[in-house]
C-alpha cells in the first residue's frame, strides 16, 4: 500500500517534470517561429508593412480654362463636392443610400450600381456616390450626418460654361471617360476617373487642357482613411486656351440669326401657349424662345450658322450654330430627360452646323465659276450672254430664277443680279474640272485647319469622283447644275467663310480658333488680281448696285461698304401641283421643304477686314433672310471697332 503510494508520488513528480519539458518545447517552438518572422523574414514583412501604411494617390490636375479674345471665361472650373461613403462604417449601405436619395438626386440605377460595386471591393474602401454636389446639397446631407455614418465629402472641380448656350458647340463639353476614349487615346488611363473633352475645343485640345497628374503619398490606416498627405509630384494644371472668338459678337450674331425676320413674342402669351399645346413639333423644339412669323404663326428660332472671320489673320471672330444646347447640362452627370429633349428635338441642336452642316452653296458658288472662266480666259467683262429665263441643253431645260430672264448680261451684271443662265453658259465652256480646281483653291470640299472634331469636308464633284462613287459618267447637265452651286456640290458654312476671306484677300487664308496660333503667312492663291477685282466688283454690286440682290442690306455706316453674294438653295423642286395651287412662296411650305437662305460677304470693300458667311436653314430667300443678318453683324462689328 505504502509502496504503491510512493510509486504514485514518484509518477506525479515525473509527470510534473514532463509538463516542464512540454513548456520548454512549446516555448522553443515559439522562439523559433518568432526568430523566423522577426529576424529571417523581417525585411519582407517590413515591405508589406510599408505597403500597408502608404497609399499612392493621383492628384487630379485642374483642367485648363477656355477664354475668348477679351479674356472672358467660356469654360472654367467651379468648386464642387464629391460625396463618398465607406460601406464598412454603415450599418446598412442600402438604407444609407436610400436616405441620401431623399436628400439629393440619386437614381435607383445609381444605387444599384453602387451596391454592385460595394459587393466587389473591400468594405473599407470609399465609394463615390456623386462628384458634383453643390454647397446647398452638401449642407442638406451634412445636417443629417449623424444618421449617415461613413459619409464624407471631398472637394473636387466641376466643369462650368458661364456662357452656356452661346458656346455649346464651340467649347463642347466634358464627360466620363469611356472605353472608346481610352482605346482611341483621347484620355489617359491614369486620369480615367476624371472627365475628358467630348466635343468642340474641349475634345480637340484635350491633351493641352487636361494637365499632368500629380502624385501624393498618403499615410492611411487600415480602413484606408488618410492620416497624413505628402505631395510627391505636384499636379500641373492644364493650359488655358485663348480663343479668337469675341463672345459679344457671338452673342449678337446668335440672337440676330435666331430671330431672323420674325417678331419676338413672350412665352407667356396665350397665343404661344395655345400653339405649344397644338403643335407637337413646336413643343419639341421649344427651348424657351419663340417668335411670330410674317403670317402670324408661332415658330421656333431660326436654325443655321453665322461665321465671322478676320480676313487678315484667319482668326474666327464668331462661330455660331443654331439651335443650341447648354454644355453645362451635358457635362458630367447627364439627366436622361435633358438628353431626350436634345435627341428628340426636330432641329438637331447637337449638330454643329458651322462645321458639320453640309449645304449646297447655291449662287454664292458663282464667284468660283466666274474666276475659273476668267482665269481660263474664256470670258472678260466684255463677254455677254443672253438670258431668256432658261437654257436648253438637249431635251432638258434649265431655268433662271427670274422667269422672264435678265436679257443681255456680262459677268458684273450676272453676279449683281445672280443670273443663272449666264453661269450655265460659262460653265459649259469652262467645264467641271476647271471649276473643281478653282473651288479647291478656295477650300471647298476639304476640311479646314481649325481642328474641331468631326468637321465635314463638303463635296466638290469631278468627273472622276462621279465615276468612282456613282459609277456613271459625268453629264453636261450636271456641270450646268453645279455652276449655280447645286447638285452634288456641298459646302459647310465655315468653308463659305474661308472662301469669302480668300476672295477678299486673294490669299490662302486658313481659319483658326486659337489666339496666337496659325500665324503663318498666307500664300498667294495664284489668281490674277485682274480676275479677282472683276469678281469683287460684281460682289460690290450685289450689295450696292441698283439691281443687287442684297441692295436692301447696305451698311448704314459712313465710308464702309460691304461686298457679298446671296444664295437661295432649293431643297425640293416646286411641284407642278404646288405651282398650280400657288404655293410657290417659301413661307407657305412646311419648314423642312423651304429653301436655304445664304449670304457671304466682306467689308470694307476697299480694305477688307472681316468676311462673313450666313446660312439660314430653310430660311427662304438669301436676299431677304440671310443678307440682313450679315448687314446687322457687320454693322455691329464696325461700330465696335470705331
Amino acid at each position, binding site marked *: *500500500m505504502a509502496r*504503491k*503510494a510512493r*510509486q*504514485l*508520488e514518484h*509518477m*506525479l*513528480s515525473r*509527470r*510534473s*517534470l514532463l*509538463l*516542464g519539458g*512540454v*513548456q*520548454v518545447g*512549446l*516555448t522553443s*517552438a*515559439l*522562439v523559433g*517561429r*518568432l*526568430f523566423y*518572422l*522577426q*529576424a529571417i*523574414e*523581417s525585411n*519582407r*514583412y*517590413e515591405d*508589406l*508593412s510599408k505597403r*500597408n*501604411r502608404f497609399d499612392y494617390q493621383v492628384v487630379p490636375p485642374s483642367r485648363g480654362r477656355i477664354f475668348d479674345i477679351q479674356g472672358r471665361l467660356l469654360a472654367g472650373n467651379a468648386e464642387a463636392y464629391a460625396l463618398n461613403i465607406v460601406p464598412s462604417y454603415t450599418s446598412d449601405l442600402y438604407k444609407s443610400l436610400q436616405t441620401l436619395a431623399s436628400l439629393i438626386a440619386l437614381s435607383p440605377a445609381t444605387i444599384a450600381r453602387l451596391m454592385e460595386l460595394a459587393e466587389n471591393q*473591400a468594405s473599407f474602401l470609399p465609394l463615390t456616390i456623386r462628384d458634383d454636389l453643390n454647397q446647398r446639397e452638401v449642407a442638406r446631407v451634412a445636417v443629417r450626418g449623424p444618421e449617415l455614418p461613413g459619409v464624407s465629402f471631398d472637394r473636387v472641380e466641376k466643369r462650368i460654361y458661364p456662357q452656356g448656350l452661346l458656346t455649346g458647340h464651340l467649347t463642347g463639353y466634358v464627360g466620363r471617360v469611356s472605353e472608346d476614349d481610352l482605346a482611341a487615346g483621347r484620355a489617359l488611363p491614369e486620369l480615367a476617373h476624371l472627365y475628358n473633352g467630348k466635343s468642340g475645343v474641349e475634345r480637340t485640345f484635350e491633351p493641352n487642357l487636361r494637365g499632368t497628374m500629380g502624385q501624393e503619398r498618403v*499615410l*492611411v*490606416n*487600415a*480602413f484606408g482613411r488618410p*492620416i497624413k498627405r505628402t505631395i510627391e509630384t505636384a499636379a500641373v494644371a492644364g493650359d488655358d486656351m485663348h480663343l479668337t472668338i469675341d463672345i459679344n459678337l457671338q452673342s449678337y450674331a446668335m440672337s440676330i440669326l435666331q430671330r431672323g425676320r420674325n417678331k419676338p413674342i413672350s412665352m407667356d402669351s396665350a397665343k404661344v401657349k395655345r400653339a405649344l399645346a397644338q403643335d407637337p413639333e413646336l413643343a419639341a423644339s421649344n427651348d424657351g424662345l419663340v417668335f411670330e412669323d410674317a403670317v402670324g404663326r408661332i415658330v421656333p428660332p431660326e436654325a443655321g450658322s453665322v461665321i465671322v472671320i478676320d480676313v487678315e489673320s484667319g482668326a474666327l471672330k464668331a462661330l455660331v450654330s443654331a439651335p443650341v444646347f447648354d454644355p453645362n447640362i451635358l457635362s458630367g452627370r447627364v439627366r436622361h430627360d435633358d438628353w431626350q429633349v436634345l435627341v428628340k428635338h426636330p432641329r438637331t441642336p447637337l449638330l454643329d452646323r458651322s462645321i458639320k452642316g453640309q449645304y449646297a452653296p447655291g449662287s454664292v458658288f458663282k464667284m468660283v465659276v466666274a474666276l475659273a472662266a476668267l482665269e481660263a480666259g474664256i470670258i472678260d467683262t466684255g463677254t455677254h450672254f443672253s438670258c431668256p429665263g432658261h437654257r436648253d441643253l438637249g431635251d432638258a431645260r434649265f431655268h433662271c430664277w427670274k422667269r422672264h430672264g435678265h436679257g443681255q448680261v456680262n459677268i458684273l451684271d450676272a453676279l449683281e443680279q445672280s443670273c443663272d443662265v449666264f453661269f450655265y453658259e460659262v460653265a459649259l465652256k469652262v467645264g467641271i474640272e476647271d471649276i473643281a480646281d478653282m473651288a479647291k483653291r478656295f477650300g471647298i470640299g476639304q476640311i479646314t485647319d481649325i481642328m474641331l472634331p468631326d468637321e465635314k469636308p463638303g463635296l466638290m464633284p469631278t468627273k472622276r469622283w462621279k465615276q468612282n462613287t456613282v459609277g456613271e459618267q459625268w453629264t453636261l447637265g450636271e456641270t450646268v447644275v453645279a455652276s449655280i452651286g447645286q447638285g452634288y456640290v456641298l459646302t459647310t458654312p465655315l468653308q463659305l467663310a474661308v472662301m469669302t476671306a480668300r476672295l477678299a484677300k486673294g490669299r490662302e487664308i486658313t481659319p483658326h480658333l486659337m489666339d496666337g496660333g496659325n500665324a503663318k503667312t498666307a500664300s498667294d492663291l495664284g489668281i490674277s488680281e485682274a480676275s479677282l477685282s472683276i469678281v469683287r466688283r460684281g460682289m460690290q454690286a450685289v450689295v450696292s448696285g441698283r439691281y443687287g440682290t442684297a441692295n436692301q442690306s447696305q451698311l448704314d455706316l459712313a465710308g464702309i461698304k460691304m461686298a457679298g453674294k446671296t444664295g437661295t438653295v432649293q431643297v425640293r423642286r416646286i411641284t407642278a401641283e404646288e405651282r398650280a395651287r400657288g404655293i410657290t412662296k417659301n413661307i407657305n411650305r412646311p419648314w423642312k421643304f423651304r429653301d436655304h437662305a445664304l449670304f457671304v460677304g466682306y467689308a470694307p470693300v476697299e480694305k477688307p477686314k472681316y468676311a462673313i458667311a450666313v446660312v439660314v436653314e430653310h430660311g427662304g430667300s438669301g436676299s431677304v433672310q440671310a443678307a440682313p443678318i450679315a448687314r446687322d453683324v457687320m454693322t455691329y462689328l464696325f461700330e465696335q471697332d470705331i
Partner: protein
Amino acid sequence: MKYLSPLIQSFDLSLEKRETADSWVGATPWLMIFVAVAIGLIGVGALYSAAHGAWQPWALMHAIRLALGLLAMAIVALLPIRFIRRFALLWWLMAIAALGMLEFFGTGKGADRWFALGGITLQPSEPAKLAVLVMLAAYFHELSADRMRQIRSYIPVLLIVFLPFAQIVLQPDLGTAVMLFLAAAVVIFVAGIPRWMVMTLMSMGLAAIPVAWSMLYAYQKNRILVFLNPDLDALGAGYQITQSKIALGSGGFVGKGYLQGSQSHLEFLPERQTDFIFTMIGEEFGFMGCMIVLGLYTLLVFLLIYYSFQMRMTFSRLVTIGVAATISFYVSINTAMVSGLLPVVGVPLPLISYGGTAMMVVFLGLGLVISAMLNEHDIHE
C-alpha cells in the same frame, strides 16, 4: 453539515498562523509574485501604447485590476488550503450554476459570454476553469493508489470536466473550453492516470476529430480553414493572421520603438488590446521584446513546477500544476495564434491582455499556490 465545520475551524487556523509570522514571510514565493507583477506592468505599458499613448481606456483600468488581482491573491493565500479543498465540490457546483445561469441572464456579442452586474462584467467560464482544477485536485487527493487504476474511478472525473466543458462549448466559447480541457488533462495526467488509459484516450481523441469538426460552428470552421490557408480570405478572417504576421515581422530584431508600431497604431492590427497584444509588443520591441515576455512567462511556469516539487500534499501539487498548465497553455496558444502557428481561437495573453476576468483567474490561481505553500504543515491533518 460535515463540510461546514472546517469553515468554522478556519478562523482558528488563521489566528494560529499569525503566531508563526517569520515562517509565513519566508514561505511566501516572492519571486513568483514579482514575476507576475512584472508581467502585469508590461501589460499596463502595452495597453498605454495600444491606446496611442493614453491611459484611457485600457492602461489605467489594467493597473487598477492588477492591484485588485494582487489583493484577491492575498486573500486567497490567507485561506487555509484545507478549507479550499474541503469546499471544492461547492466551488465546482457554483461554477456549474453560474454557467447555467448565463443561458438566462447573460449578455454579450452573439454568444452569451458575460454577466453584466452594474458596470462590472463577469465571465464565469474563467473562474469555472479554476473550480474544475480545484475539484479535480481534491478528487485525486482522496483517491488511493489502488483506485487510481480502476476505470470506474474516472467516471466522476468525466463528470467534473465535461459538464462545465459542454456548457462553455455551448456558449459558444471554444477557446476557453479547449483551455479548460487541456489544463484538466494535465492535472489528470500528473495525478497518475495509468499509461494505458492515456494511450486509449489519445487514440479515441484522434478518432473523434471528424465528429468534433462536424459539430463546430461555421465561423469556427472558417477560422481553422483560413488558418490553414490565409489567402482564402485575405480581407476577412485571414486578415487578422496576415496583419499580425506583418506586424510581428516588420518589428524585426529590436522593434519599431515604443508607441511607434505602425501596424498597431494605424488600426491594421485587430484586437490589439486583447488577443493580439503580443503582436503589438512584438512590433514595437521586436524579437528582443518577445523574448523578454516569453522568458518571464517561462520563469513563472517553471517556478510553479518547482514549487510543486516542494509540496507534499497531493491536492496542493495538483492545483499548482493545474495553475502552471493553465498559464503555460494560455501563453503558448496565444503567441502561437498571433504568430500564425495556430488558428485564431480567442485566447488572451494572461496578465497582459485587457480583461479583468482572466487576470483575476491567474491571481486567484497564484493565491491558491501561495496558500498551498503556506499550509504545508497541514499535510498530516
